[in-house]
């Protein structure tokens, strides 16, 4: 069984591999400008990435660096810090992809 954790680091210019790659157990970790997937509704619609069958995380430091707070985050997404990310890497997923 593929257990894949994906770092999503861009918003509008995110590479389409993120959309295409799947896994039995899939986690999307929004970091850098990827955090806008967790916080911005474009024309009233959430990022289509949130419709994927996956668990979603967003890096707290990269939210607050951009003036965003937990209150801005979509309910489907869990806010994590660097220490949590290390645990996700070791305990939840086996393969990691930076896309």
């Amino acid at each position, binding site marked *: 069984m593929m257990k894949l954790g994906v770092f999503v680091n861009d918003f509008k210019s995110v*590479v389409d591999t993120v959309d295409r790659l799947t896994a039995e157990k899939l986690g999307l970790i929004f970091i*850098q400008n990827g955090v806008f997937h967790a916080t911005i509704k474009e024309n009233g619609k959430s990022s289509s990435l949130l419709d994927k069958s996956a668990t979603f995380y967003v890096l707290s430091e990269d939210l607050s660096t951009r003036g965003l707070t937990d209150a801005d985050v979509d309910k489907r997404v869990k806010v994590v810090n660097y*220490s949590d990310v*290390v645990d996700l*890497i070791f305990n939840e997923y086996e393969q*990691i*992809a*930076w896309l």
Partner: protein
Amino acid sequence: MGTLTIASFSSLVGSRSMDFTLKLAKAAVDKGHNVNIWLSSNAVMIAKANQKHLKDYSHAEKYVKELMDKGAEICVCEACALARGIHKPEAIEGIKWDAMHWYLAKIYNSDRVVHIGGE
């Protein structure tokens, strides 16, 4: 505890991906994991000694030394560095100089790999 190998291809101050690399490495080391870091492409700039810390720019030298003190192994791609005019005597002490197969061998012996490419 596990072994994590991180590869970075991003530059010291031109891209925040290097900051991510160093913060993730620190968090892993602090939890007791072994960490290896492979620096290729523009990321070799991190190896340059005597980076001046200006507050408009991110600053790697201090964090690199701290990570090595805590046992992390850091290696730069020698060819990438030389092509940029960075020679070994100008580099931060303690950083290894080697080639790509160093990285693949570290991967072989790692539990997890975070390969930060794309630039």
